[in-house]
């Protein structure tokens, strides 16, 4: 920030947060929920992937009562839900039509933007 100078520690923390906002081109909005920012809470003990079968706490609140550590980062649903949990996520048919739709996406949390969009083949 050029016109305001952070003086106390809270102000410095606010500046830190707004710096990332400011670094985007003007007017650009991004999908906040899919961003992997710095961890907001200390790393909790490892909880296995998956939904209610392993008693992870679900969508509403995490173990600490907040929302920072919900059972799955949503982008991971793309993989976990359609393969492991039978959650009806709208993803391409990996078996028949689009076996390579995730080829450029090595790690969903980082590379989710590279996932291909698949359109129905109009020639058929």
């Amino acid at each position, binding site marked *: 920030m050029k016109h305001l100078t952070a003086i106390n520690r809270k102000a410095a923390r606010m500046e830190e947060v707004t710096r990332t906002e400011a670094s985007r081109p003007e007017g650009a909005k991004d999908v906040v929920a899919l961003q992997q920012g710095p961890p907001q809470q200390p790393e909790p003990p490892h909880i296995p992937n998956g939904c209610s079968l392993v008693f992870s706490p679900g969508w509403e609140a995490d173990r*600490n009562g907040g929302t920072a550590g919900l059972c799955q980062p949503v982008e991971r649903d793309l993989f976990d839900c359609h393969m492991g949990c039978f959650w009806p996520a709208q993803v391409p048919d990996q078996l028949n039509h689009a076996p390579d739709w995730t080829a450029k996406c090595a790690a969903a949390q980082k590379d989710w933007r590279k996932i291909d969009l698949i359109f129905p083949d109009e020639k058929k």
Partner: protein
Amino acid sequence: MSILGLREFHPFEAAGRRYVYLVPSAAVFALDDCSEAVLKELDAGPRAAADLAQDLGARFDRAEVSDTIAELQRVRLLGEVDKPSAFAPGASADKKGLSPPATPKIVPLRPVPLQTLVVNVTNQCNLACTYCYEYGEDKIVDTENGQQPKFMSEETARESVEFALRESRENRHAHITFFGGETLMNFPVLKSTIAYARRRAAEVGKDIDFSLTTNATLLQPDVIEFLASERVGVTISIDGPEDMQDKFRVFNNGQGSYAMAAPKIKALLARHRSRPVGARVTLTKQTLDVRRIYKHLSEDLGFWEVGFAPVTTAPGRDYAISDGGFDHLLEQFRALATEYLEASLQNRHHGFSNVRETLQEIHQGHAKAYPCGAGIGLMGVSTDGRVALCHRFAGSDDHGLGTVRDGVSWPKQQAFLDAHHVSNKTDCATCWARPICAGGCYHEANTRYGSTERPNLHYCEWIRGWTHTCLEIYGELAARNPGFLRQFDDQPTERVS
């Protein structure tokens, strides 16, 4: 087009710089010419961003103004008028275009680790201070004819230690403050409890440390030796030079306590070097000469720190400080705070602890949801082992949370937290000092208004005046000796008075 209006903040000046204290975030920013000009323009009422750039065009170029507006919006100094504040989505802006101020109500969803347990080892006292909140006219627990034992037993003290260690939960550190009555009237239990607590803390892998408050009249050489070698933090209740001390701090026969206390304090200060020893002064209508009290306690007696608190009392008492008295008090505090500033600019120690504590809170920028740690990170135990909000409520059935044996009730604690959140205090909703005050002491409110849920409206002006003074000192130090503020980077330990 978006119409911009001011959000909540408190402006102040120091060392020729202009600052703002943001509410409710408690952040402090320094302004430059352009940001100050924008705020000034908007003071008259909400405006469109484009109009602002036009009006300020003679002094600043358009890009600079829009940059500034963006920054001010990012830190929530400005907001769009038609968009309600994020924290009060249902409310609409007032006539001036200001968004309704609000503090989000976030109540802890699970028990918070206990940081300090105040253990009242006795409710007896060898003094009979007229204004005493425990024994005097405004007491809330009948300590004389009540059910509780006069002295805490060794067994209850040990259970209190276990409670403190257990309730400190994931924290590595636990702290016990011994309190009274006159704490040292139960020195044998205090002594054995410290030994027990050290052993138990080591067994469960925690650090533990201790402090106590005393009137100094029972500081015998063996007691002083023990406190020094065990590194027990000591706070001494004393009201100033002899004539002031002896006005209210008297024995049962009316005789003043200064003559007995002063030599013992000197002996303690000469021997106890392991932790700084502080004085805690109760101010009354009759004893308001803050600078004289400070000078005597720090220079003549040699205290490292001196803290002042206005007496807690119902309004009608003859020692209660009146409105005019608070104005006078603020003047005195300001004068002493100026001394503190001068010393701090030269990196010299000054022991006026009220200003140091407020600077620490400003520096951290905590926006308090509760005025203090009572019932959250701090609790008080009465001589029979009942746990209450803090030591001032120890033994009171109406303010109890449980016992050291059976633990505290989380639903009760939650109900307390829900009822005492600053967002419940409608009077505080428009006050810029609420991030730091949050309504003030529960015990004071209970004594004054009969309910812990009420804000302490009788000292609002005083709190705002004092906070403003401390902001100015903070701004002065930030501009002229910023290195001095680094000492406040660490979290403070909770003060008990």
